[in-house]
């Protein structure tokens, strides 16, 4: 298989998987079949999976040595973002809890 075909295939796979994941998330919400919390959790999980798919197939981030720097960068960014977002949510909800009443 030539490089070109292989690369085309990667994009096609990425596109296909993303479509499936998007439709799945949409369907979960459009035709709800279990509790709100569970749905939201699943939606978030599907979103994360789709992000991973796109990083892999569209942005060509992999475990190969040649993209090691990029991978490190992305993982570090993910760590910082997780810290900031979760910190913000925890603190502000904690504050809200202590300040209404």
């Amino acid at each position: 298989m030539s490089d070109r075909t292989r690369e085309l295939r990667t994009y096609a796979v990425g596109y296909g998987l993303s479509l499936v994941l998007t439709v799945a998330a949409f369907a979960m919400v459009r035709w709800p079949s279990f509790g709100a919390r569970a749905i939201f959790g699943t939606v978030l999980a599907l979103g994360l999976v789709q992000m991973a798919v796109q990083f892999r197939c569209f942005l060509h981030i992999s475990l190969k040595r040649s993209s090691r720097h990029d991978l490190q960068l992305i993982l570090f960014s993910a760590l910082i973002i997780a810290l900031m977002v979760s910190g913000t949510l925890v603190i502000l909800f904690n504050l809200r809890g202590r300040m209404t009443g």
Partner: protein
Amino acid sequence: MAPLVAPLACLGGCTALSHGFLNPQGPVAGHERDLFFTVSIVLLFVAGPVLLLTPLFAWHYRLSNRSDAYRPKWNFSWWVEGLIWIPPAGIVIGLAVLLWHWTQIDDPYRRLPGAAPVEVQAIALDWKWVFVYTDLGVASVDRLTIPAGRPVHIKLTSGTVMQSMLIPQLAGQIYAMGGMTTELNIQAHRPGRFRGENTQYNGAGFQQQKFDVVAVSPADYDRWAAAARSGKRTLYAQTWRRLSARSIITHPVEFAHITPNLFEHVVAATGGMTHSPQKAAR
């Protein structure tokens, strides 16, 4: 700090420090002062080696001192590594335990043990504080009268920007914010007059936003309460409008009659996080 501060505090009388938490007059500030000394002593062991070794090494190994071994390539030793990582880590762990414990106890929301607290609501304005005594139905501006020896539970909000209430000799501070309520618990051991202030900058009158906390004996407190109730001044909408304008008042004022649920009204009117539909519809 401790070696510098402690003797000064002992001078007593008219030194600056007697106005601060090193001269505590209530259980919370006293407890926190103890923590301050404990931590300071621990930290002496941290700062001490640096303060000793730096000049010692620098001087002893100076270029002109030819009598020393010179090891230009020496750059690592497991012993030294252990020495510089492990004891500091140990100290931090020790301090962490202390910190956890003390933070729980000195949480400003935590009720103080003892008699039922006096309930006070504090409203921060530019540039003054309004205190509502919920038990008595009276209010005062820029003077907080409390009975010595009995806990006081303060609920705070702000009719304007964010502010912070600090009475250094009694307890630590907490912010007061529009549309929200925070809490502070204080207590004075004995009668006295202590300075309270806003520490969060809020404009041109900031430096004047101080108030007196007057702790009096329980008997005096009852006398004061009776007098306050029988006063003539009223705090209704019109007075409130004048009071909440940006201004400095020169003398504390007391009000015998006030709008019911004044505090709750202020919280609702400056809705921070949630909001009543009426206001939104405006």
